[in-house]
């Protein structure tokens, strides 16, 4: 019968696990293992057992262990709260002044003084989709400006456009938002560039009208694009596109490209287009970090 004390057991384990490599203790244990039958037996048993334990731990790690949905939801909510919570030292928001500022923004929007913004109520979503052209002040116009939503208190604003100089809009005044859900490919995406933004695409703020002829069913729109339905996220994405290639956005379609969720963007007057329209398909990560980040396709038509 081979019985060790805790200290012996730990020492032998350290030796087997390589923790004593290069130390005098390793030489001592090696000498014992080579000269003492009990130590030799113990060493052999532990080496065998250690391999078995490693295998079981590795097998445990191979079992998928994704975050449960309820935990993921809870984490998302906590982080969202953290995003909208004022940071320490942030100025206290004067709600009366904020409401007044929102009212002025709505008035500017209504009388057309706001720079080049287009709104299309996307059929089936029940969520107004807004493209803002007022990026130079980091002041993104939204259609739910008086909604008291979480986005109001967000300390962060949309990134400024890169390369536009901020002096003119990166979005055409008659730009359209479409949610076709269509799966484009290199041979078909150019057709979108031949579609002029429909007049019906221009809708008043919060009008609730929808150009259903141009909008797909909600279930057609990839869920992965949900983030880009947020006006701030979408503005960051479009700013990144225009910052990279110049020009003005004429049309945005929530769709797919070769099966992958994609925001297909038609841009006029780009540096690459040579008079033609730039067609670019970007993935759900577009705009993160102020970059396109997720370009799936680029061409001219």
């Amino acid at each position, binding site marked *: 019968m081979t*019985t060790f004390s805790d200290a012996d*057991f730990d020492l032998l384990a350290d030796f087997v696990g390589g923790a004593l490599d290069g130390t005098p203790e390793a030489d001592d244990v090696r000498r014992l293992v080579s000269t003492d039958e009990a130590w030799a037996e113990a060493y052999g048993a532990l080496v065998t057992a250690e391999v078995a334990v490693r295998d*079981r*731990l590795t097998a445990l790690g191979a079992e998928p262990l994704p975050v449960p949905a309820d935990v993921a939801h809870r984490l998302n909510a906590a982080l969202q709260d*953290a995003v909208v919570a004022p940071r320490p030292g942030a100025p206290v928001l004067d709600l009366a002044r904020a409401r007044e500022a929102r009212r002025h923004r709505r008035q500017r929007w209504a009388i057309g003084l706001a720079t080049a913004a287009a709104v299309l109520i996307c059929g089936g979503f029940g969520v107004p989709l807004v493209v803002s052209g007022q990026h130079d002040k980091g002041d993104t116009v939204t259609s739910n400006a008086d909604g008291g939503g979480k986005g109001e208190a967000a300390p962060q604003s949309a990134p400024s456009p890169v390369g536009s100089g901020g002096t003119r809009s990166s979005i055409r005044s008659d730009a359209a938002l479409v949610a076709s859900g269509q799966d484009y490919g290199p041979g078909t995406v150019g057709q979108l560039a031949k579609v002029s933004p429909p007049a019906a695409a221009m809708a008043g703020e919060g009008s609730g009208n929808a150009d259903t002829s141009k909008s797909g069913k909600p279930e057609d729109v990839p869920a992965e694009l949900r983030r880009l339905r947020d006006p701030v996220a979408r503005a960051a994405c479009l700013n990144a596109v225009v910052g990279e290639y110049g020009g003005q956005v004429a049309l945005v379609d929530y769709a797919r490209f070769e099966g992958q969720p994609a925001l297909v963007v038609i841009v006029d007057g780009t540096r690459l287009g040579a008079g033609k329209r730039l067609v670019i398909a970007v993935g759900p990560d577009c705009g993160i*970090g102020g970059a396109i980040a997720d370009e799936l396709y680029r061409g001219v038509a």
Partner: protein
Amino acid sequence: MEAEPGVRETPDDTALLHAHAAGDPYAFAEIVRRHRDRLWAVALRTLGDREEAADALQDALLSAFRAAGNFRGESAVTTWLHRIVVNACLDRIRRRQSRPTVPLPETDITPAPVTDRDTAMDVQQALQQLAVEQRSALVLVDVQGYSVAEAAVILGVAEGTIKSRCARGRARLAVMLGHLRNPVGSGGVPSPNSAEAATGAAANRKEGGA
């Protein structure tokens, strides 16, 4: 249609963290999306309790969210996140003064018969019986597949210490899982401690790892 080859430029974790620190409201969520499954696995396997793991992960991610500006880039973002999560788990374990480890004063080193494994503990249960230092090292290295060097950075200790914690933890798991015979408390072999005059082995080595 004159297609140009598409270019995918996914921002790396460091770029996202800097974007978050600069005010991008979506950057941190993207980092979390990328790593949350692994972080969850570490938290759950270290704590062994679903609710505790969820609390620890939430605390850790909020802490990272707020401390992103302090990230110096000395390690990978994922390593930095793991360190915060593991520390949150260890804090919880220490606060609740968790169950003591299984004492093994006299350990029989004889290989166990196969039948012993019928009553052996589930490996996850057995992990929970280990000292928290050994458990966290084993979870990172053997379960999650991190290198010893990465685990050392995450846990803030020397690589040798990680090796020792893993080795001792595996040896204890071997007993608990039935790969070594359970202690019988009889007999004995010359200990390197008692035979130190002959071997020169250190007598009071608490934890290996130079």
